[in-house]
């Protein structure tokens, strides 16, 4: 599995004009590869033949500078299958383009894009697994979320839900047997799905050479809960919003809700009152702090051992955030607080008390952070362990579609809050944190420093909310009771979740439920880069690298 040599692209501004992208220029760049054009809500999309996918993607990547394959969506229509590659630029994610690949309903075969974007590997496996499109030239086209023995493709239209998933004994032959009998120089070992360090049900098929990792392969899907399908059955207005809380269930709920809210609001053209945007911004950043603190605590367990004081300290501080969020939303983890067009209710009364509690937390935070810096980033033993281990080069990170603190720890300056502004972020004063170390240490440091930035944002939001005129506190705009976006509209929108770019693709068919609901999970893409970071390292550094990725299996498996 060799990477394409990353060529410095000199044409990143092809078709870039002052008002945005000129898609005609891009179309002429692609030339005869384009057979049609579609207009999605977020960007134009070019339709290409299923046997020319790699060519089209490669032109867009090498010559037009689309270096970020954000997501691959697959779906089935009455008459065809379709894969959509959502491409962006790391420098400016508002420059987007889609590549739509229709394939025959009878023989859904399409060329793989994994040779151009490594991240397409897992995305295409998922498309194969759930929808049933086969990708030619794919290096490893196996099921990824469902068991190897699964019959049928659950998100395809002719899937028979009544069919019993009975598999003969021969199919249950130990899939690891060959590894046991394999070479004598290496040792095969299963790390997980039950292991103190895997942060959930992740299974790492690891080959060890002595104590060093020769090969590691992630086996995911143990926590697959059909989230996409559940959302496809729910109505836009009310029934979908509770579910995002359950993707990244570790205190990042509001950030996930915002991903859905943003996509659906843009799709159905719903305005959000400014007051509600501020509340959203504040509460989302509280969630980010809670999530980053937890990431720090669990990373400490991985490196320090399970009696580490840092874990409990992180929980102590996270508890305060949870209490504030509980006051605001009535819930501690499964918030269900955002609504399309705003939030569920206003700040709790008495408002002064809420502000005071939040301010107390913010005042206390610098002392706490100093303590963490003393214990973690200033600790020489930790530096010995984490500096220069688990290296993820920036070009490799981009190839794998890494985002969030993982990308920023590799010096990739990419943060959707700033680069693709939403909410109230563009009117507040804060900075995007990056570190150039590319190692485990940098990724942890980025999170610690991001907590400070989030605190800055919350502080400004609290000030704004406090001074907000009492007669202008609109928390929701007018949204029709039954929301039916125009038929055949498509949108891909992303927000900066705690772990990175959390994107939602929605296709509407004119009913009150989405025809296709696809979740682009940051953890899914970040986890795919684990072998790049871990191979050649010692087992403890594999564990530390996994901890520094900060994955949540609920979001990886969905």
């Amino acid at each position, binding site marked *: 599995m060799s990477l394409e040599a990353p060529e410095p692209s000199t044409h990143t501004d092809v078709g870039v004009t002052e008002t945005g992208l000129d898609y005609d220029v891009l179309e002429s760049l692609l030339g005869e590869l384009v057979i049609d054009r579609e207009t999605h809500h977020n960007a134009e999309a070019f339709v290409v033949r299923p046997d020319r996918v790699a060519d089209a993607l490669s032109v867009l990547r090498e010559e037009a500078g689309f270096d970020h394959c954000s997501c691959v969506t697959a779906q089935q229509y009455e008459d065809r299958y379709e894969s959509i590659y959502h491409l962006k630029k790391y420098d400016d994610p508002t420059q987007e383009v889609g590549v739509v690949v229709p394939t025959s309903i009878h023989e859904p075969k399409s060329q793989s894009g994994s040779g151009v974007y490594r991240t397409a590997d897992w995305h295409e496996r998922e498309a194969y697994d759930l929808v049933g499109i086969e990708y030619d030239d794919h290096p490893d086209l196996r099921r990824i979320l469902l068991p190897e023995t699964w019959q049928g493709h659950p998100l395809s239209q002719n899937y028979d839900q009544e069919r019993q998933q009975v598999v003969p004994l021969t199919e249950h032959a130990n899939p690891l047997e060959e590894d046991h009998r394999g070479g004598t120089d290496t*040792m095969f*070992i299963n790390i997980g799905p039950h*292991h*103190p*360090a895997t942060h959930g049900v992740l299974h790492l098929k690891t080959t060890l050479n002595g*104590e060093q990792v020769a090969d590691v392969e992630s086996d995911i899907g143990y926590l697959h809960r059909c989230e996409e399908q559940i959302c496809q059955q729910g109505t836009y207005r009310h029934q979908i919003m509770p579910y995002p809380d359950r993707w990244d269930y570790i205190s990042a709920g509001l950030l996930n809700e915002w991903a859905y809210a943003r996509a659906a609001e843009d799709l159905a053209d719903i305005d959000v009152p400014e007051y509600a945007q501020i509340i959203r911004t504040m509460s989302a950043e509280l969630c980010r702090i809670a999530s980053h603190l937890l990431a720090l605590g669990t990373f*400490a*367990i*991985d*490196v*320090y*051992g*399970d*009696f*580490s*004081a840092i*874990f*409990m*300290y992180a929980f*102590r501080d996270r508890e305060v955030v949870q209490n504030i969020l509980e006051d605001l939303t009535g819930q501690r983890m499964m918030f269900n607080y955002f609504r399309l067009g705003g939030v569920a209710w206003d700040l709790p009364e008495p408002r002064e008390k809420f502000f005071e509690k939040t301010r107390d937390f913010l005042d206390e935070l610098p002392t706490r952070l100093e303590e963490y810096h003393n*214990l973690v980033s200033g*600790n020489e*033993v*930790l530096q*010995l*362990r984490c500096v220069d281990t688990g290296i993820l080069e920036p070009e490799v990170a981009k190839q794998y579609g890494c985002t969030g603190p993982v990308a920023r720890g590799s010096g990739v300056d990419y943060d959707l809050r700033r680069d693709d502004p939403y909410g109230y972020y563009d009117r507040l004063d804060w900075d995007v944190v990056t570190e150039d170390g590319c190692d485990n240490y940098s990724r942890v440091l980025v999170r610690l420093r991001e907590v400070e930035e989030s605190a800055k944002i919350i502080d400004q939001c609290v000030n704004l909310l406090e001074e907000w005129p009492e007669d202008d506190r609109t928390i929701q705009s007018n949204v029709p009771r039954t929301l039916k976006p125009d038929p055949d509209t498509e949108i891909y929108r992303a927000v900066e979740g705690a772990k990175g770019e959390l994107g939602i693709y929605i296709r509407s068919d004119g009913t009150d439920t989405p025809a296709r609901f696809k979740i682009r999970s940051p953890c899914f893409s970040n986890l795919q880069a684990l072998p790049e970071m871990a191979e050649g390292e*010692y*087992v*403890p*550094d594999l*564990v530390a690298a996994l901890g520094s990725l900060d994955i949540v299996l609920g979001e990886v498996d969905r």
Partner: protein
Amino acid sequence: MSIADTLGSALGLGSLGPLEDFLLSLVGAAFVGTFVLLNTAVAGPWAKRKITAAFTDRVAVNRVGPFGLLIIIADAVRMLSKELIIPDGADRPAFDLAPLVLVASALLGFAVVPMGNGIQLADPEVGLAFLFAVASIASIALVMAGYASNNKYSMLGGLRAVAQNVAYEIPLVVTAMSVVLFTGTLQTSQIVGAQAETLITIAGVSIPSWYAFVNPFAFVLFIVANMAEVGRNPFDVPEAPTEIVAGYQTEYSSVYFVLMYLGEFIHIFLGGAILATVFLGGPAGPVLPGFVWFTIKIWAFFLFTQWARSALPRVRIDQLIEIGWKGLLELSFVNLLLTAIIVGVIV
């Protein structure tokens, strides 16, 4: 003076015959064993919970009995009533023997430790050598456990344990030898006796010539090597739960697990006992009886290991070996050489 003599004089017996000596020694051994087990098996786990909780901002056990003390009984019942699961393909005699060897090796060490007030089971001339010799039998137990479990994590843990013990045993012994240069004897009672002299008197407070004060450099080296020897953070790689599950003890359950766990606890306390004997004047101390001081000192070392566990990251196995062979070993020999020169010139 051995414990048999102490008991004999307490009972008003004159000189002891061989039979009396033997019987009284048995009584003494029972006493020493009970004392060690009281500390390690009864008080240890409860105290560990409380100490760790205090370090990590928690409360720990407080529901069962005052200060949660009755949790000791509840734990004992729970641990002993669990099902003993022995994996298929385990190498039976070795798998069964490993926990016993681990516990026995640590308990044996206490036989030559002077605990004050005449409590010392035996006082051979090679006491210190005996102490290190039996303590290092533990590594054999760990290899047995790791190899016999037929589990890859256990195997890795066992290999790590032996690599670590080999790397740190040498600096440990060499550093202790620098103390022997001062005392000129391996007999533990005489090592303790040599530390009773006054080193210096400051403002009326006389500071005893404990070797921790005489040679603080050796003291620090010894603590580091001792931490590695008992396998505590930052040197707890042989069991490193987040890496190799539980290392050599992954497959042990029920009573066997209790024994493994107990063995580790006794080893920590034995580490403290060696430290107290060689560097902290053994049972010496003002006001309180020697025996109490001895207990305080071994608990202080236990507390120290728990503190390190809460606050320090563990090093990687290759770094651990590197620190051992490239750092501690050299330093311990330098220390030995310098001490030899100083002792040769001054004394």
